[in-house]
């Protein structure tokens, strides 16, 4: 019987299987950041252990960094200590750090691919649930907790039980105004925020294959929002072209060897999946969420479900969610006023996202009373935007281009949406309080967010493009 992409990579990385328990998996690359690593390093010290393979660990500061005046000392004391602790730990344990001020600094899931560190067939982990992003390269990438970070630092191995396998096929052509963020929001709205829990998900089909690497990363990024252990896409020429020539990509003979291996990474025709879902790309319209988990999404021309459309059992959670969002059951979502627009996060802060926004807003002005934050995913994205003159377009539109970091995606630093305000956001989570206590989040694509920035309300972007 044939093997799936997941199984091919899994089998190659099993060091040992434990009877009635998890498998010991070898990890090729481990990304760390300031928030989920300090306790892991403390644990190592307590045990008197070194980092087992420091060359396979890459660090950056992203979650808790300011996104303006990054050249100044961080004002807030706890944040400053946390970022400094990462620096100290990296020095002490011999780990490469792309910290604040470094030309490679940025959101961990943006810099890994952009530096060519993320490659097909690898196992990658990071103490962050959106590690699934790297799966866009045909990589097995898991988000892990801090005890597991410590485990990988100590042994370069992770204990994992084998997940079930799901394949989601998206076939056909996308409609006008529909981009990869809409595909994944649509999928999650179909199968719910827990619909893929316990599964590794492979995305396949002609609509997926037609996407750029940036767009594929957006899809794999949000796999965790339906509970999936990881998301992945088989590598192809688009993948190989993206990687070629990047800083840490293999070169010369090594490239040829790598490429030969990478080309074996696909699900065999007779591979078995525990579950398969087929989606017609033409059914997808620009999506937006109305509730407080990413599964609560609808087409922008649709309406918030009426109470009669909700399962009796789910009514309390549904009503709690709408109450938080200040929305009425059955209400139209289009036309809803927004106060903030956040374009950023590891879901949609890559150069392609910024280009998409810039080409849409060029010559337009943001609506009065709306605050627009553009937070590039990395220093390299920021630099590239400047090289291309995208920064000028944003400035003329009244958008604020900030410095790289997670920013208002999780509201850990000072970039918070004020209580009660509405933010249309290109990030991945609309949980209560995610963008600040009592902040209200609509998740959408960069294109839909840009449209809302111009009109000041939730807008069907299809009406604004030729």
């Amino acid at each position, binding site marked *: 019987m044939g093997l799936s992409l997941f199984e091919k990579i899994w089998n190659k990385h099993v060091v040992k299987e434990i*009877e009635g328990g998890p498998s010991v998996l070898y990890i090729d690359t481990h990304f760390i950041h300031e928030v*989920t690593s300090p306790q892991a390093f*403390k644990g190592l010290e307590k045990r008197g252990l070194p980092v087992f393979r420091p060359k396979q660990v890459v660090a950056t500061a992203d979650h808790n960094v300011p996104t303006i005046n990054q050249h100044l000392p961080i004002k807030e004391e706890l944040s400053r200590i946390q970022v400094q602790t990462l620096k100290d730990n990296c020095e002490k344990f011999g780990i490469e750090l792309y910290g604040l001020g470094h030309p490679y600094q940025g959101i961990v899931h943006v810099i890994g691919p952009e530096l060519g560190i993320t490659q097909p067939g690898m196992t990658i982990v990071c103490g962050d649930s959106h590690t699934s992003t790297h799966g866009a390269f045909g990589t097995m990438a898991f988000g*892990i907790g801090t005890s597991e970070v410590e485990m990988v630092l100590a042994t370069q191995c992770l204990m994992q039980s084998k997940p079930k396998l799901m394949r989601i096929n998206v076939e056909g052509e996308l409609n006008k105004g529909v981009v990869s963020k809409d595909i994944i929001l649509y999928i999650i709205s179909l199968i719910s925020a827990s619909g893929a*829990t316990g599964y590794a998900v492979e995305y396949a089909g002609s609509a997926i294959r037609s996407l750029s690497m940036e767009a594929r990363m957006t899809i794999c990024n949000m796999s965790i929002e339906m509970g999936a252990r990881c998301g992945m896409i088989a590598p192809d020429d688009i993948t190989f072209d993206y990687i070629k020539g990047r800083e840490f990509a293999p070169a010369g003979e090594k490239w040829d060897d790598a490429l030969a291996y990478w080309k074996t990474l696909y699900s065999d025709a007779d591979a078995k999946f525990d579950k398969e879902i087929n989606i017609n790309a033409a059914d997808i319209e620009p999506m937006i969420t109305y509730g407080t988990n990413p599964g609560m999404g609808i087409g922008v021309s649709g309406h918030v479900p009426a109470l009669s459309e909700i399962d009796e059992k789910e009514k309390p959670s549904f009503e709690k969610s709408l109450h938080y969002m200040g929305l009425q059951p059955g209400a139209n979502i289009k036309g809803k006023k927004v106060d903030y627009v956040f374009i950023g996060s590891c879901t949609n802060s890559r150069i392609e996202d910024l280009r998409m926004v810039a080409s849409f807003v060029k010559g337009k002005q943001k609506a009065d009373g709306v605050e627009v934050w553009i937070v590039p995913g990395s220093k390299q994205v920021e630099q590239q935007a400047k090289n291309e003159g995208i920064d000028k377009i944003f400035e003329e539109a009244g958008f604020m281009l900030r410095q790289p970091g997670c920013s208002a995606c999780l509201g850990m630093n000072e970039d918070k949406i004020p209580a009660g305000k509405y933010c249309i956001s290109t990030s991945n989570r609309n949980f209560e309080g995610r963008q600040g206590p009592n902040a209200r989040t609509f998740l959408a694509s960069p294109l839909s967010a840009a449209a809302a920035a111009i009109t000041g309300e939730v807008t069907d972007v299809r009406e604004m493009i030729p």
Partner: protein
Amino acid sequence: MSKQLSLVKSTVVPVNIENIDTDQIIPARFLKATTRDGFGKNLFRDWRFNNDDENQPKPDFPLNNPKYHGKILVAAKNFGCGSSREHAAWAIKDYGFDVVVSSFFADIFKNNALNNFLLPVVVSDAFLNKIFSAVEKDVNAEIEVSLPEQYIKILATGEQESFDINNYKKTCLLNGYDDIDYLLSIKQDIEEFEHAS
């Protein structure tokens, strides 16, 4: 932190809400610490307090209701979804819980809980409802969770259900071992694996 689990017999704190994500369990702004301690006081912070103010507790939230107490937290399905932050497990454990019961857990949370000697117990929807009704009837209703024998029991009615846990993890929890101890013991295998590939 108790680094061993076996039999837990206790009253429960019911939080009958679905899809409780780790941002609710511990909001991001409390993740700035560099140690594992003290997260319990901010557990469910924004559901417990108005305006982020400890002097303004929300009386309806079960953790603020003095009639509920105990070592077992019971929540509706899909508990612990979202962020991988282990701080969520630390907060629950630090607050004083040893067991979390739900009909469905998110994967990363489940691992994080197990790595912190916090036992996630998966029960059927029907049994979960029985627990909620038992507590509704009598706030002092006790639940017994036996790790060695893998059952959970409502003592007042005697109703019980068995739960799954893999053998390896069970041994770890019963004996206070952790994964790093194990992995260090197979270091030679790891090095051989590196050579071979």
